[in-house]
């Protein structure tokens, strides 16, 4: 037993020594062996397939090749194997590198990609498609659509399906499957999953814009045409006066729509200088002054609530400046001068850099909207406050509110909430909030909305606070 172990060890040592001795001394020697090996292969081919006259020279050449590989066929075969291994390794590294790049490129795509073989077994899926693995809720329906279309693609049928997921947020996916074919044979399938929510929203927006602007212009113009036709008839002076009044009203309506469009174009195309230090208190003050009459008339109480940072206020848990106090609340339909709290005016915390005229226009639009969409006896609150590096203006009402789907579209041009729910015919043409958003974004801020049907809406403007030098 011991003898056998010893002899195995000896043989092992001999083999190891032989390998060390017969390794090529340098890269050149190795490549020389490889080229000699290639020559040997070619010679062998000539010997096997060439005509008889060529066999003698081929045999001679073959021996030469073997000699150039240091004479030993065994040693040559070893070198050849080693060279092939090196080549295979290099090829494998190259393929691995290509695969890594391809996988990374697929992962960088926003479109989900699922590739499967002819038996429906998954070959690969990119990062965007990963979210549909073991998916739940709405995503499970997308995963379901992927499986269904995959089956169709494997039967050679390309198909597309749209999966619309309701709820908050509302999402729409497009699932597209195609068979992978080579020489007429189906090798597998590829499924693409694309989130088309934004695309669809823009499509809807464009369609509604064209429809709404057409409607808004056509209604008064149509009325004007009819009224003009009536004027041509021989009419009594009283009727004539009434018709002229109507023409005036309809003309003003058309002019309002056109003015709105021009205003929006003006704020969008002109770069307004934002070099004025504006007191947000003054902005709120002026805006409320302009709306208070309409609020009185409608029976809506316009209230100003002010949260100002207290002198010793610390930072709250949420990073906001703790409210020192709620400013004095003056409800009811009192005059604007009474409803404005003087405390927050001229405070350095409430200053922003921008255009006073534009900011007043934005805040006025929000307050005006809030009054319009609040029933008589309702309440509209306006609140200005400093929050870290921002000055925020909140306009809150307890009016009709909006559904989530409407909130997502409320800042689009000409978008109006369901008109059947607006109690006032004079609800505007749907440009006000587009103008507000543009003005606020032009100032480096943002405007947000939170609303619930039947409970009211909160519109909040956030503006970067001015840092005095």
């Amino acid at each position, binding site marked *: 037993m011991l003898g056998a172990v010893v002899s195995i060890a000896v043989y092992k040592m001999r083999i190891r020594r032989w390998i060390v001795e017969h390794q090529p001394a340098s890269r050149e020697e190795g490549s020389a062996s490889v080229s000699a090996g290639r020559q040997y292969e070619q010679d062998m081919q000539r010997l096997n397939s060439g005509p008889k006259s060529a066999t003698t020279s081929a045999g001679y050449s073959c021996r030469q090749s073997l000699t150039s590989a240091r004479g030993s066929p065994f040693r040559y075969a070893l070198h050849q194997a080693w060279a092939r291994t090196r080549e295979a390794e290099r090829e494998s590294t190259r393929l691995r590198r290509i695969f890594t790049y391809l996988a990374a490129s697929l992962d960088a795509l926003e479109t989900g990609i699922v590739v499967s073989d002819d038996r429906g077994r998954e070959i690969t899926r990119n990062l965007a498609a990963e979210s549909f693995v*073991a998916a*739940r*809720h*709405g*995503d*499970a*329906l997308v995963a*379901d659509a992927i499986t269904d279309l995959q089956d169709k693609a494997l039967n050679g049928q390309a198909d597309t399906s749209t999966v619309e*997921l*309701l*709820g*908050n947020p509302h999402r729409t996916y497009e699932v597209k499957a195609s068979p992978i074919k080579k020489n007429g044979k189906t090798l597998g399938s590829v499924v693409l999953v694309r989130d088309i929510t934004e695309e669809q929203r823009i499509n809807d927006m464009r369609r509604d814009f064209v429809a709404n602007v057409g409607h808004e212009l056509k209604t008064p113009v149509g009325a004007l045409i009819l009224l003009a036709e009536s004027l041509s008839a021989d009419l009594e002076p009283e009727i004539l006066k009434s018709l002229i009044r109507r023409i005036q009203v309809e003309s003003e309506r058309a002019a309002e729509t056109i003015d709105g469009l021009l205003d929006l174009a003006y704020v969008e195309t002109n770069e307004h200088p934002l070099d004025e230090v504006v007191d947000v208190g003054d902005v709120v003050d002026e805006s409320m002054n302009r709306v208070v009459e309409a609020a009185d008339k409608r029976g809506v109480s316009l209230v100003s609530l002010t949260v100002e940072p207290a002198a010793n206020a610390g930072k709250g848990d949420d990073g906001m400046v703790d409210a020192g106090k709620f400013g004095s609340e003056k409800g009811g339909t009192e005059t604007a001068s009474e409803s404005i709290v003087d405390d927050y005016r001229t405070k350095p915390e409430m200053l922003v850099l921008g255009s006073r005229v534009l900011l007043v226009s934005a805040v006025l639009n929000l307050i005006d909207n809030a009054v319009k969409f609040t029933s008589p006896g309702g309440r509209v609150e306006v609140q200005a406050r400093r929050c870290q590096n921002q000055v925020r203006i909140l306009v809150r009402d307890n*009016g*009709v*509110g909006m*559904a*989530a789907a409407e909130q997502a579209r409320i800042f689009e041009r000409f978008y109006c909430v369901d008109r*059947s*729910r607006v109690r006032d015919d004079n609800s505007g043409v749907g440009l006000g909030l587009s103008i507000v958003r543009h003005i606020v974004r032009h100032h480096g801020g943002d405007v947000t909305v939170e609303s*619930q*049907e*039947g*409970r009211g809406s909160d519109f909040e403007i956030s503006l970067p606070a001015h840092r005095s030098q």
Partner: protein
Amino acid sequence: MTKAHTQRTFHVEIDHISDLVVKLASHATEAVLRATQALLDGDLNEAQKVIDGDDALDSITVTIEEKCQRLLILQQPMAIDLRTILSALWITSELERTGDLATNICKGTRRIFGAQLTPKLRGLITEMSEEAVRLTRLGVDSFAEKDSGLAAALHDIDDRLDGLHRSFVKEIIEAGVDSTLKTQAAVQLALIARYYERIGDHAVNIGERVFYMVGGWAPENMGAARERERRRLESMSYDLDNLSDNRDGPDESRSG
């Protein structure tokens, strides 16, 4: 086929059943959201689509039931495996019922077609729908993750939906008093609110089944234990009464 292979196949089958339950829940919750949208928009076409789509839910339900029955018969599972299959069967039934309730909401939509809902009613309908869907999704999450804590919490979370239901009924009565809503529409809306409330109850039931699946203890066991205890006490008091009667008897005869 080795024993290990059989077990592996068995667990793959159980996972497949769980996936189907999740899929059924997705269809059911989406049906509820679509039904709500149809109700708010007064969209009869969408309502009809939801009603027609209920067949797909029934089909998944049948598939799950067949798979569960097959596993029960062929594999004779025990412990957690048995409880998982039984729970999947019960939860499937709850989800199928949720789908039926979404269909009922659509049928209600047809009946109240043309009725003008006040903004407050619309807001409450949206809230109830979102809450019902949230509860169902939480129930399914607890099933997929075998989370008994979440399952147990569903009962408390359901209180909010019950509160919304009460507010809705109050609002309907007020709208009826103001004559802004016709009686027929008011009755239908009250029923629709009840459907949402029931969807929440089904979600709570799912939670209870998950609680049973994980720990082997269902809330009914508590009631059953109380009932057993009550009966035991009753029989004890009966025995004591008899005993005291027997004792009183000779005393009386003695005193007599």
